[in-house]
């Protein structure tokens, strides 16, 4: 029937898009296992680029720094974001709507603008470039994501559960710890994973805030690409992609993202 043709065409379209989205990533990963320095075919399997990577202290240092910054961002943004979400959920007060709207500029304004503005400001207050500035910037970018994800989970929470707990004599800290937090735990975990991904993948803001020679992994990759690319970059890029996709798969599991509600 006519209908089934349309459905088929749609599925083929979806398949093409998935191909478009994944093919270049697969090609890049593939090339990291190719011995030729100039990406020449035929394919000659080799792990030499990964071995070289293991000896490249500059890249390894940058990777360590990126992971540490991402972990610190995750901890700070998750705690601050969850606290803010709880306040926004539990209380009615003047200016609440304004505070919610304030979450959008960090997401919506291009990172080029945010990044250059941070550079100017941090220089102005004497902090300058470097890891502390990068960390402050990353937390600010990750916070709105944590608040949005945790608030979404809180929205599914029935406030009468808190009232019930209180009617049984629990004080508000006990209510939070024993009733509210367990319910939103999955949202908090998802928010934390989002925060990690935002920081770990962040390039633009890090680019303006990193000290040369003391940069994060994406910044190092960018400068290397501009010097001319080598399969070593493929190798580290492959590792990055695998890590960030794995983190996001976990986040998706916990946030019930796109699932049926």
């Amino acid at each position, binding site marked *: 029937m006519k209908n089934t043709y349309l459905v088929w065409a749609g*599925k083929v379209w*979806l398949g093409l898009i998935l191909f478009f989205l994944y093919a*270049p990533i697969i*090609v890049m990963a593939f090339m990291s296992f190719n011995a030729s320095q100039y990406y020449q075919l035929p394919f000659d399997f080799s792990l030499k680029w990964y071995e070289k990577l293991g000896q490249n202290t500059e890249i390894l240092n940058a990777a360590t720094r990126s992971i540490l910054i991402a972990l610190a961002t995750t901890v700070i943004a998750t705690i601050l974001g969850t606290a*803010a979400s709880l306040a926004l959920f539990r209380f009615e007060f003047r200016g609440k709507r304004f505070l919610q709207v304030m979450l959008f500029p960090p997401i919506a304004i291009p990172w080029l603008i945010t990044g250059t503005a941070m550079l*100017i400001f941090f220089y102005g207050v004497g902090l300058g470039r470097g890891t502390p500035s990068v960390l402050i910037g990353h937390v*600010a970018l990750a916070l709105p994501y944590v608040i949005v994800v945790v608030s979404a989970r809180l929205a599914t929470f029935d406030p009468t559960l808190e009232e019930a707990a209180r009617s049984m004599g629990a004080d508000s800290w006990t209510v939070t710890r024993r009733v509210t937090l367990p319910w939103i735990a999955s949202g908090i975990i998802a928010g934390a994973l989002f925060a990690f991904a935002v920081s770990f993948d962040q390039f633009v803001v890090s680019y303006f805030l990193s000290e040369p020679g003391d940069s994060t992994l994406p910044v190092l990759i960018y400068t290397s690409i501009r010097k001319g690319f080598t399969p070593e970059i493929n190798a580290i890029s492959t590792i990055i992609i695998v890590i960030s996709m794995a983190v996001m798969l976990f986040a998706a599991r916990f946030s019930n993202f796109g699932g049926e509600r």
Partner: protein
Amino acid sequence: MSTVLARQNRLKIVSLLSPAYIWLTVAIFLPLSAMLYFSFLSDVPFGDAEWHYTSENYQAFFQTSTYATLLWKSIKLGLTVTVISVLVGFPCAYVLAKAIKGKSREALFLLVILPFWSNSLVRIFCWAIVLRGNGVLELGLNAILPFEVDVNLMFSTPAIVIGLVHSYLPYVILTSYLALQAIDDNLIDAARSMGANKLTILWRVILPLSLPGLLAGAVLIFVPVVGSFMEPRILGGRVGTYFGTVIEDQFVAVFNWPLGAALSFILLAVVLVILATASPALRRAQT
């Protein structure tokens, strides 16, 4: 009694909210204000440099056509990428939301938005590998086609557009999907029971109802593309000079920060105008 409670509540609200919002203020809102201030300076006020207040940086934008031309070029790039992404992504979102059911839908949806959360720089680098002369695309095409072709899309506008579409396509799929999924299937059944064919249903029911989501996706693509600089640099080479790359240059190469701040602020103004125009739609997409 009630005032004590109110005070307690206020204390709780402040202690829960202030860490997050002070952080946002320090890292986002004060820097934006500082940038506005800087854009009116003649030179950076650090060290022993001479500086005074001036509007020269803004005049530079209006006096020479260079910056305006580049801004327009960036806006055109934003429109191109947005239109292509919408045309490609909306049908995809529709198939996901209405033609595929159950577990496989969830899995496919996740597959579509997963790359979006991987490193955008790395994904642009992937395209550099694919598109370069003697690259995988050329080798692949020559393996299939009976005649020799010379494909070197690298360092061209199409390369930039392809890379950006790849980066931002998942946005429009995500927002359209959420909007489409929210459309009650009964509405489609109702339209059919009144004799509407598929095209009428698409045009009169589905499109109007998913428009807020579609617009939200379009804005979410357009805004960052107008401010993009890394993608044009890597994939565009010499043709990759845009408004974003000029701003980047002011900060990392030319070190004319006040001019960079002014240009950034002009870009921010453009972005804010677009966000404000689209905000009714964005608000509706949210709910």
